[in-house]
């Protein structure tokens, strides 16, 4: 599996507000067997700290978690621990154990999995080659060798600080049967969100405002002009003689939008080959995280997480758009790892000079990984030869 498979989801006409374009995705038949709920954590500004198990922790603002329930029984869904909103008791700092964790009630494990949305994806990105150099070349500092890339941090904007997004989400009119949403800011894809069931979507639609958005999305929303609507246009060629013809022409308009959306607007998301990594398996459903190829060809790159069924269809999807800097960082780490963290060979592979590569490592914010004394010596050597 290398691509996101959105079979079963149809595109409906977009709704535009300012620079934000929201494209609803509708399922003709809702998926039975897997449901998502929301679990609200803490009040404002509370940090969440997650124990990842391998003696690393992941700390972030975590507004809520999702609970995936594959027990199949609707009545059981509202059992212990599930909240559909409202004010939960506030806890100053919350400690989560694992990003994805099976729910236990009365000492036996239930068919319910709690996971922290988007943080699975982000953790995948942050933990990219987190261990640091695999071969201890002398250019790498003691810190890099001992502690790897730790602490590794990325900044993102919460949805409510993205200008215009809150208003656009508020006035969005949810379609019947809607199970997903593609969110475009200044006509570039900012996030994709898919859930298994329309009822889940109605409950989880407001969570989009609490999600994380990259600085690129914030910039586009801040500086971008309002985007135009794609208005329906019926060509008045004289072929329309009856009401049925008019109706057919109207249908054709809806179809053409759906086609052009898939090929034009969401192409980068749907056609990029991703690296899928399975995080958790629940009966016939798999929770994956996906990482893009970190290509530097200027196309959109998303990290994300998704739940698929045994046929590989997407039941749940949440993506995060990486900014250009973040792609660059991922690309650099990938290349370093490919060349066993040897700076000289990496520079060759990238088609650049040793000094330039060092500058890039520094520019990416990894300067503490380098032993500057050795690096300076090596640069002098290369320049003399």
């Amino acid at each position, binding site marked *: 599996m290398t691509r996101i498979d959105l079979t079963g989801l149809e595109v409906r006409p977009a709704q535009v507000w300012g620079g934000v374009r929201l494209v609803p995705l509708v399922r003709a038949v809702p998926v039975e067997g897997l449901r998502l709920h929301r679990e609200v954590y803490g009040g404002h500004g509370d940090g969440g700290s997650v124990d990842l198990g391998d003696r690393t922790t992941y700390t972030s603002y975590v507004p809520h978690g999702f609970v995936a329930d594959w027990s199949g029984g609707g009545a059981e869904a509202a059992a212990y621990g599930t909240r559909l909103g409202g004010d939960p008791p506030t806890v100053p700092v919350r400690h989560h154990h694992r990003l994805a964790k099976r729910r236990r009630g009365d000492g036996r494990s239930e068919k319910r999995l709690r996971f922290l949305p988007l943080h699975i994806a982000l953790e995948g990105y942050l933990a990219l080659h987190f261990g640091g150099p695999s071969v201890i070349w002398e250019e790498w500092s003691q810190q890099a060798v001992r502690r790897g890339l730790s602490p590794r941090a990325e900044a993102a904007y919460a949805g409510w600080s993205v200008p215009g997004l809150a208003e656009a989400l508020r*006035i969005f*009119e949810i*379609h*019947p049967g809607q199970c997903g949403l593609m969110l475009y800011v200044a006509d570039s894809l900012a996030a994709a969100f898919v859930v298994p069931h329309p009822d889940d979507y109605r409950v989880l639609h407001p969570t989009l405002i609490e999600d994380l958005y990259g600085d690129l999305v914030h910039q586009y929303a801040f500086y971008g002009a309002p985007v135009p609507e794609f208005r*329906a246009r019926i060509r008045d060629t004289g072929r*329309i*003689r009856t009401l049925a013809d008019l109706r057919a022409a*109207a249908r054709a308009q809806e179809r053409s939008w759906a086609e052009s959306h898939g090929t034009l607007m969401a192409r980068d998301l749907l056609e990029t080959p991703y690296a899928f990594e399975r995080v958790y398996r629940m009966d016939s459903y798999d929770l994956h995280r996906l990482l893009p190829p970190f290509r530097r060809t200027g196309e959109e790159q998303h990290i994300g997480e998704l739940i698929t069924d045994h046929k590989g269809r997407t039941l749940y999807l949440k993506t995060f758009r990486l900014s250009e800097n973040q792609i660059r960082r991922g690309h650099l780490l990938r290349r370093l790892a490919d060349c066993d963290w040897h700076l000289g060979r990496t520079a060759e592979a990238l088609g650049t000079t040793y000094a330039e590569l060092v500058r890039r490592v520094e520019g990416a914010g990894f300067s503490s990984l380098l032993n500057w004394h050795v690096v300076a010596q090596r640069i002098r050597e290369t320049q003399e030869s």
Partner: protein
Amino acid sequence: MPETYADLIAAEDVLLFVNAAVTATGQREFRSSAGEQRLSLAFLHEYVRVNYRPVYAAALALDINDHNAVTIVEQLLRTADEADGPTGKRAEGRLIAARLALLPPQRVYRLFRALRAAKVNNRRTRAIVRDWLAGRAASGGLAHDAVKYRSGLKTAARHVHRRFPGDESGDFLFAPGRRVRYEHAALDAYRRAHYEQGALYELPFTVAEGFAAKHGVPRAVFLERIAPRMTRLERLRTQRSGPATDLAAMPLTRLALFVLSLPFGERAARRAELTGALRAAAGRVAGPYAGTWGRVAAVLDDSHSSSGSAVKRRRPLAVALGCHFLLEALAAPGAYSAHWTSGTSGGFDPLLVRPWGPTPLGTRILDALEAAPDRLVIVSDGWDNAPPGLAGEVLRVWRTRLDPERRTSVVHVNPVYDTAGFDVRRLAPSVPTAGIRDAEDLAALVEIAQFAEGRTGFAELRAYLDRRVELFLKGAPR
């Protein structure tokens, strides 16, 4: 008559203002904040006042809403020196007096307070306030106002230097300690209500409410006993907790709002009663025109945006529901079909309508045209989004290709003022659009909407306005 370009623009400006004055209330709407609404409306008022002052004053004769009527009066009095000579001033004065007589008194008192705050105290203003107060005194006595709108009356009287020679109301307002008791029942009841529970029920509802809280009267007992002193709308407002009232006597749109405020279970349980009340209200509005409109099809918007805002809760939906029952009454028996945007048309109980989902107006218009009706009425905020613009395209092609002889007349009424466009949102240039505030005005609006097709000149429009003004002033007391 040759029409100049300026004439057409003038006609368009005026219609735009009328649409705004009917719909906009300066309150928050689904898609715009209260600030945006007020800013946009304030500009429009100033623009029309400066450029078309006689028309601006004449708008008082139309079915514009109270908020805009008050704003127009205030603006006219603030800029009295811009009026067109003594004749213009006289015409304005008559229109203002006639409109003030129709406005609810609390609005008028608020207007007087605004005039005082703005330091407008010219001779004309004083005369207008004095005349209005004299009218109140003649119709019901100022004592009632002194109790119910105490601070309002006090401010107004002080502003225009009105004296109350030998009148108890004057003492009641300005020297409350002077008399031990009052001859007038209302004034004395107010005095006694401070220590006597029984006197409470002789006071107007809003005043008595405060005393009831002071005396700790249980709400249910209070509502039961105060019922005869309540106004019609107060009775509707306290219907849930108070005694049952005759719903059929309520105005149509208020009744629709009340129905929509009930939970679904209660709506279903009281279906017969509520439907009967709505039908009765619609029948009363339709009056002699009932059953005269032939085959009517309606496209009614119950999308998410019809939920309005926190201050205008479900207003667009209530207008649609009111129009539904009114059109049913206006259409020939059995010749009415409703198409809600949520897609539920046949066999659907309109009482159970809820504001949810997208707005596929284009498809619904196609459904409605299927039956080739004589009239097609679209009630929507004009945000056609599934797909956007389809409704306009369908109506355009229908008009040019399929129905060039105009067998079907199409009209779009819109309950929401669009701040960015300074008008209500249109679906297509070929379709006349009118703003609507209460479903009751539908018939009159369909008449004015014919001007909105962009083919009528300013002269014709002025003639229409003059006719309306004449009718309006004929009905006025002076």
